[in-house]
C-alpha cells in the first residue's frame, strides 16, 4: 500500500529523470523552431534577422529536398522490405532443429553489434570497391565487368549495407516471437492435415504479426535517421543522389553554416518522425495494458 509518505518519496525519485528529459526535449527543440524563423548564417555573425517562413519555403522548394525525401523513404522502405522478408525466412530456418543452433545464432546476430562506420567502410572498400573489392573479383571470375556500386548505384549500395546491419535485429525479434508459438497448436494443425504453407499463412504469420509490427516501427525510427553510413561511403553523392533528410540538414548546418535553413529542415524531419512515432506509441501503449 502506497502511503502519502512513500508517494512523495516516489515523486522525488522520479523528478530528476523527468526534469532532464523535459529540458532535453523542450530547450533544443524550441531553439530549433526559433532559429528556423531567422536568417542566420554562422559565417555572418551579427546579421541575424527575422525571416518568417522564408527558410521553410526555401527548403521545401529546393530540388535537393525532394530528392532527400525520396531517398529517405527509399532507404526506409528498401531496408524494411529486405529485413522483414529476410528476417521471417531466417527466423523460420533458425527455429528448426539443427546441429550447432547456438553458434549459427551468434553468427547471424553479429552484424547488429558492429558500429555503423566500421560496417560501412568494410563494405565500401573491401567488398564494393570496383578495383580491389571482393565483388569485383567475383564479377571477373564470372567473366563480367566489375560494377562500381557506390558510383553507379549509391542509394542501393547504402540500402544493402544498412539492411545487413538490421537483418539480425528483425531475425532476433521474430525468432523470439516464433519460439513462443505453442508447439501443440502446430501439431494439432498438422494432425488436421494442414500443409506447411497453410500452417505458415494461417498459424505462424498471424502469431508473428505483432512482432512484425514492432520490427517495422522501431526500425523506421532508426532508419529515418541513417547518417554515418552515408557520411563515410558516398558523402551524399554523387550530387545529391544518396542524400537523405538527415544528411541534408547536416550538410546545411555544418558544411554551409546555414543555421536558419538547417533548422527548418530539422523541424520538417521532426514532423515526419512524429507521424511514425504516433503509431509506434499506440502499439507499445497497448502492451503496457496487457
Amino acid at each position: 500500500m502506497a502511503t502519502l509518505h512513500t508517494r512523495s518519496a516516489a515523486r522525488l525519485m522520479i523528478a530528476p529523470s523527468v526534469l532532464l528529459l523535459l529540458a532535453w526535449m523542450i530547450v533544443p527543440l524550441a531553439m530549433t523552431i526559433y532559429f528556423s524563423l531567422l536568417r542566420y548564417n554562422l559565417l555572418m555573425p551579427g546579421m541575424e534577422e527575422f525571416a518568417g517562413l522564408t527558410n521553410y519555403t526555401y527548403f521545401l522548394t529546393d530540388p535537393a529536398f525532394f530528392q532527400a525525401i525520396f531517398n529517405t523513404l527509399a532507404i526506409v522502405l528498401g531496408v524494411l522490405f529486405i529485413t522483414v522478408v529476410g528476417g521471417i525466412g531466417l527466423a523460420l530456418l533458425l527455429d528448426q532443429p539443427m546441429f550447432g543452433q547456438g553458434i549459427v545464432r551468434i553468427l547471424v546476430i553479429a552484424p547488429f553489434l558492429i558500429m555503423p562506420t566500421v560496417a560501412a567502410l568494410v563494405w565500401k572498400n573491401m567488398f564494393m570497391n570496383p578495383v580491389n573489392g571482393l565483388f569485383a573479383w567475383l564479377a571477373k571470375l564470372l567473366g563480367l565487368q566489375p560494377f562500381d556500386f557506390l558510383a553507379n548505384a549509391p542509394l542501393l549500395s547504402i540500402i544493402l549495407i544498412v539492411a545487413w546491419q538490421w537483418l539480425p535485429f528483425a531475425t532476433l525479434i521474430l525468432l523470439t516471437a516464433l519460439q513462443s508459438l505453442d508447439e501443440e497448436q502446430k501439431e494439432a494443425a498438422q494432425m488436421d492435415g494442414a500443409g506447411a504453407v497453410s500452417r505458415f499463412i494461417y498459424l505462424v504469420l498471424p502469431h508473428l504479426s505483432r512482432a512484425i509490427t514492432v520490427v517495422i516501427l522501431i526500425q523506421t525510427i532508426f532508419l529515418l535517421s541513417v547518417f554515418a553510413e552515408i557520411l563515410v561511403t558516398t558523402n551524399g553523392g554523387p550530387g545529391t543522389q544518396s542524400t537523405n533528410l538527415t544528411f541534408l540538414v547536416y550538410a546545411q548546418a555544418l558544411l554551409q553554416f546555414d543555421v536558419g535553413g538547417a533548422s527548418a529542415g530539422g523541424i520538417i524531419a521532426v514532423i515526419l518522425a512524429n507521424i511514425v512515432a504516433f503509431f509506434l506509441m499506440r502499439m507499445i501503449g497497448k502492451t503496457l495494458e496487457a
Partner: protein
Amino acid sequence: MARNVSTGRKLITTVVAWTIGILIFFPILWTFLTSFKTEAQAIASPPVFLFFDWTTENYSEVQSRSDYLKHFMNSVVVSFGSTLLGLLIAIPSAWAMAFSPTKRTKDVLMWMLSTKMMPPVGVLVPMYLIFRNWGLLDTRTGLVIVLTLINLPIIIWMLYTYFKEIPGEILEAARMDGASLSKEIIYVLTPMAIPGIASTLLLNIILAWNEAFWTLNLSAAKAAPLTAFIASYSSPEGLFYAKLSAASTMAIAPILILGWFSQKQLVRGLTFGAVK
C-alpha cells in the same frame, strides 16, 4: 515435447543454416583475416583466405600512427560514463514507478519513450551551438552528457520492465517478518534487481559504443571515440585495407563479445519490453 524430425532433414537444415550464417558473418570474418595480412596480400587477386603469412604488424602500425589507444579510451569513458550516469538517474525513477505506481505512471513512461522518437537532426543545430558556446565541443564530458540523455529513456524502460517482474508478495512477506524499509531494499529487492540492472548496463554500453550521430558531429581529434576515429579512414587511408581492418577489428571486438552474452536482453531492451 520434442519434435520428431528425421536425422536426414536435420542435417539438411544444419547445412543450409550454417551456410547462410557464415555468409552473413563473412564481412566480419574477412575483416578479421585481412587485419593479419600485409597490404599487398590484402588486395591480392585472387584473394588469399587462410594461407598467407600472418602478421600483427598492422596492429602496432595503427597504434603508432594514429594513437589508437587514445580513441579506444575515449570510447570506454564515453560509453561507460554515460551508461553509469544514466543508471544513477534512472534506477530511482524506475524503482518508484514499478513499486509505487500512480495512475499517471503509464503516461510518464510513454512520454519518456516519445523523447526517443525525436530525430537527432531536429536538435543538431542548437546542440552544436550550445556545445560551442559552453566549450563542450570535442570533449568527453560533452559526449557523456548527450549520450546519457539520448539513452535515458531506454534505460528507464528496461529497468522498469525488470523491476515490474519482482513479485510484490515477497515484499509483504519480508514486512511481515519485521524487516524495515532499508533492510527490505538491501536484502530483498537489491539481489532480485541486480540481474535486470546488469542487462540494462550491458545493452546500453553496446548502444553508446556504437552511437554514430552525435559522436561524429560533436567530436574532432581530441575526444573522438572509435566511431569517429574509424570514419577518418573513409579516405584516402581506407585504401590501406590491412590497417583499416586492424583498426576495425579492435573497434568491434569488445562489443561483439559483450553482445553475444546479452542476446536475450537485446530483444527486450530494443523493443521496450514489447517482445520478450
